[in-house]
């Protein structure tokens, strides 16, 4: 009866048996697979999330009023995204629709459709992380370094300066060849708009791609945001480029997945999250890494973000994410209100990969400073009970104060690597021995400028890459003490 027809006339269809908000259970579709796309007569799209023995569970990506027995057709495309260099400087939603008001995406350039759901590349494709990811932020690059291909969790309470910090990192990637991708997951539209404006005004939009689904959009679309961002990241990584991927934030993503799962009758587990929430995030973050040339050769450095409730990082999602990343940066709003920017708690932050990527000089210096900060922290308790402290203790406490001041960095500023090392070594020289914290507060920028611009001091800056030990640098800076003194007397 039907064999005489061309396949063009044949489609797979299904009928809505049950609908709940954005979730529909369909009957039909004999050969449908997970992540296939279906569409209603009115053009509302949905993607197949799971398949049971009799029914197909579909999550709607568009707002649509579904009726009983509504007909759905299977589309020829699967859940995917058009990727290409034309995405640079644009903001798109997770299904590739531009949301920045700049019109249609360029079709003159070659593009390929990549599926959003990808299995993370295996061990055979991975390369040892050996190159440092320069953020331009002294505190990170010296004390908690990040490697290219590392996954570093950024966690902290509200208003602790996480977003500003992340924007600084993106802005500091100018002229480095790093492609930045910012996934804004379930944030208000105005936040996305501000983000675009800040990046544009700082000249960082040209190498950045924003993938965003705002809080007012359907939950399935928000759920797909990090997957879409990773798909775009993988496209550039396979071209041998280094990619920075920021996922802001995975707490929202977990809440959206909880909403979808509860609606789909999945059993709730701890904090009502479904049992596979760990899988969802681990599956996602495994897609980051440093890859061998045969697999594209680039790297994806992932910075997932999570907002904490009253700095409590012992809840399910933060602990899950801590266990599946290679370290974390803990932000505290209390530190920010004390004037510390970035407001990172150094003692509670860790990078498990970055230290192996530092050059010997940075590594020695960073170990020395960390040891000094730790000693100072121990001595601080003793210092509170005694009026007269030994010279050695006073010196350690003073150095700690100076280091903390030098680690403070204003937003939208970049500190070159050589200056970062000079800042770390200066408290060990006699130049800062009798200088107060206020001196550094007022002259920190001038010191950096002097080492960059002054003819005699810039000679030291140029020599830094060839130095091997912290002692060599301290000795060099000690010799320049006289020049520095004269510089600041004028």
């Amino acid at each position, binding site marked *: 009866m039907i064999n005489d*027809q061309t396949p063009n*006339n044949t489609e797979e269809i299904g009928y809505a048996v049950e609908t709940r908000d954005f979730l529909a259970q369909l*009957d039909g*579709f004999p050969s449908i697979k997970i992540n296939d796309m279906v569409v209603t007569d009115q053009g509302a799209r949905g993607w197949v999330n799971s398949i049971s023995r009799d029914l197909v569970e579909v999550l709607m990506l568009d707002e649509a009023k579904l009726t009983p027995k509504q007909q759905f057709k299977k589309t020829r495309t699967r859940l995917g995204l058009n990727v290409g260099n034309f995405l640079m400087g644009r903001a798109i939603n997770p299904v590739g629709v531009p949301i920045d008001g700049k019109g249609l995406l360029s079709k003159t350039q070659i593009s390929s459709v990549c599926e959003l759901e990808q299995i993370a590349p295996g061990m055979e494709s991975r390369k040892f992380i050996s190159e440092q990811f320069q953020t331009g932020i002294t505190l990170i690059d010296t004390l908690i370094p990040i490697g290219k291909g590392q996954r570093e969790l950024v966690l902290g309470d509200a208003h602790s300066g996480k977003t500003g910090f992340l924007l600084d990192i993106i802005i500091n990637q100018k002229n480095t060849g790093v492609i930045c991708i910012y996934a804004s997951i379930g944030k208000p539209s105005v936040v996305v708009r501000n983000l675009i404006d800040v990046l544009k005004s700082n000249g960082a939009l040209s190498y950045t791609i924003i993938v965003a689904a705002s809080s007012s959009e359907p939950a399935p679309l928000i759920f797909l945001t990090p997957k879409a961002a990773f798909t775009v990241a993988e496209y550039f990584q396979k071209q041998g480029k280094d990619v920075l991927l920021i996922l802001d934030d995975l707490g929202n993503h977990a809440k959206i997945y909880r909403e979808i799962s509860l609606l789909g009758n999945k059993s709730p587990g701890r904090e009502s999250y479904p049992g596979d929430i760990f899988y969802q995030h681990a599956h996602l973050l495994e897609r980051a890494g440093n890859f061998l040339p045969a697999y594209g050769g680039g790297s994806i450095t992932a910075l997932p973000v999570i907002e904490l409730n009253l700095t409590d990082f012992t809840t399910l999602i933060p602990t899950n994410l801590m266990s599946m990343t290679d370290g974390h940066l803990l932000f505290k709003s209390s530190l920010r209100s004390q004037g510390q920017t970035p407001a990172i708690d150094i003692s509670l932050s860790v990078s498990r990969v970055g230290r192996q990527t530092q050059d010997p000089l940075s590594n020695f210096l960073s170990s020395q400073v960390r040891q000094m900060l730790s000693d100072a922290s121990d001595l601080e308790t003793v210092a509170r009970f005694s009026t007269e402290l030994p010279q050695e203790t006073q010196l350690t406490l003073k150095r700690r104060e100076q280091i903390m001041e030098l680690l403070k960095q204003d937003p939208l500023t970049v500190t070159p690597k050589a200056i970062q090392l000079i800042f770390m070594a200066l408290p060990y020289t006699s130049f800062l021995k009798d200088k107060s914290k206020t001196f550094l507060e007022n002259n920190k920028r001038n010191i950096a400028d002097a080492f960059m611009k002054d003819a005699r001091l810039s000679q030291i800056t140029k020599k830094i890459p060839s130095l091997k030990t912290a002692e060599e640098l301290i000795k060099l800076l000690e010799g320049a003490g006289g020049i520095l003194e004269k510089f600041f007397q004028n």
Partner: protein
Amino acid sequence: MNEAILNTILENTYTLSQLKRRLSALKQLLLKEFFKSDSNQPAPAIDTEWLKSLPSEFLKQFNKDNVYKIFEDIESQIIKLPIVTIYLTFEPDEATLSQIGQRAKKTFNKLLIFDIKYDPRLIAGAALVCKGVYRDYSLRSKIEEKRLIILNNFKKFLK
């Protein structure tokens, strides 16, 4: 026993709506018979004829104790019946349905049931859905298929 009852009903029942309507009429008749229940809605004339055509041996299979159970079973069996959805651009009359139905039951499966749906967008012809596969035999699909040829022919008349 229930399968035999369903087979008898399906002998000259061709569409899903017809089947549901007839089952409802039969149930009403039997409940009135067994429990003297007063139904406010009399069965449609078209179904009254059908009810009268049922053999007395068929009705004897029902009694006070099994009537609810039999209907429950039949309703669960209906879900499993092979249903072919037909999209048409008009509403077929009983005679046409019976003609198509008899032919289909004879050719394919005697339990086959049609679900008739109205879709004027097809222009003419029909579209069929069986086991989730949609096949379009309508004029619309033919026009779509030959869209370019048709457009080119129209363009010849444009100056």
